[in-house]
């Protein structure tokens, strides 16, 4: 091999060839066949799912948020209505705060 000067910046073909031989792997055709066998055939089910994942998750979040809001609003309205009925059933007069709460709760 060429023994060049220590500060030369050119390539050393002899050293390059030794390095190539050292790092070279065998049977590239068999390797390529292995690679190709691993590749997905066309658009797989996972590809389709992956394509739909982001909008699907966004839609699910929106639906969950709407359902949550609807459920909370419904329960709030029901719980606000209860004291009126209880007070009325007990034959007691309602104070202003309870009355306002009941009215506002119903109107939501």
């Amino acid at each position, binding site marked *: 091999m060429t023994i060049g000067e220590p500060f030369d910046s050119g390539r050393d073909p002899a050293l390059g060839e030794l*390095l190539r031989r050292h790092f*070279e792997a065998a049977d590239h055709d068999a390797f390529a066949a292995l690679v*190709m066998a691993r590749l997905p055939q066309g658009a797989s089910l996972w590809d389709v799912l992956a394509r739909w994942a982001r909008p699907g998750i966004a839609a699910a979040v929106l639906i969950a948020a709407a359902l949550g809001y609807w459920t909370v609003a419904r329960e709030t309205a029901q719980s606000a209505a209860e004291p009126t009925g209880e007070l009325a059933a007990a034959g007691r007069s309602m104070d202003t705060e309870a009355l306002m709460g009941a009215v506002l709760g119903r109107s939501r």
Partner: protein
Amino acid sequence: MSGAVRIPAESEAELVRRAQAGDREAFGELVVRHAPMVRRLARAILRDPEDADDAAQDAFFSAWLAIDRFDAGQKLAPWLARIAMNAAKDLRRRRAVRATEPLDAGAALMRGSTRAEADDLLLRTRLAEAIAALPERQRVAILLYEVEGYAHAEVGTLLGIPEGTVRSDVFHARRALRAALREPEGRDDDR
């Protein structure tokens, strides 16, 4: 790029375009053409041949998944080289990569060899030991420069380091390897 992979630009661009359109056969042709470079690079990082081939396979798999995002006007080799280096480092993170010893000269092998074969085996053994002793970045830098044919600046871009650092890495790696090949008894004497 002044790379060692000499492929007519048009034909490679055409293969890339076909691969981007989902043509597996075209991608297979690109795999065949670039497998030697990708496998060498993975070996320079992982050293164990089996791990290196696993990483090289991962690299081509990633390349297939990302080929539609590749700019067909660019050279494919540097893009693949970058993917290969990432795949090798990723594989090393994911699993404890098998530790490798530098190739042993194999006294038994040498016994039945001719003088020339024994000398060649000894040379390769010393080279393997010296390569194994190099820091990873120097190992990859000298491979990209001396074997794959990239310029210092291109190696710097691929490795994400300044050109001056590449020159220094290549210089030190080359000096260590030359010393190992020249001085069988006292490898570190002239460092």
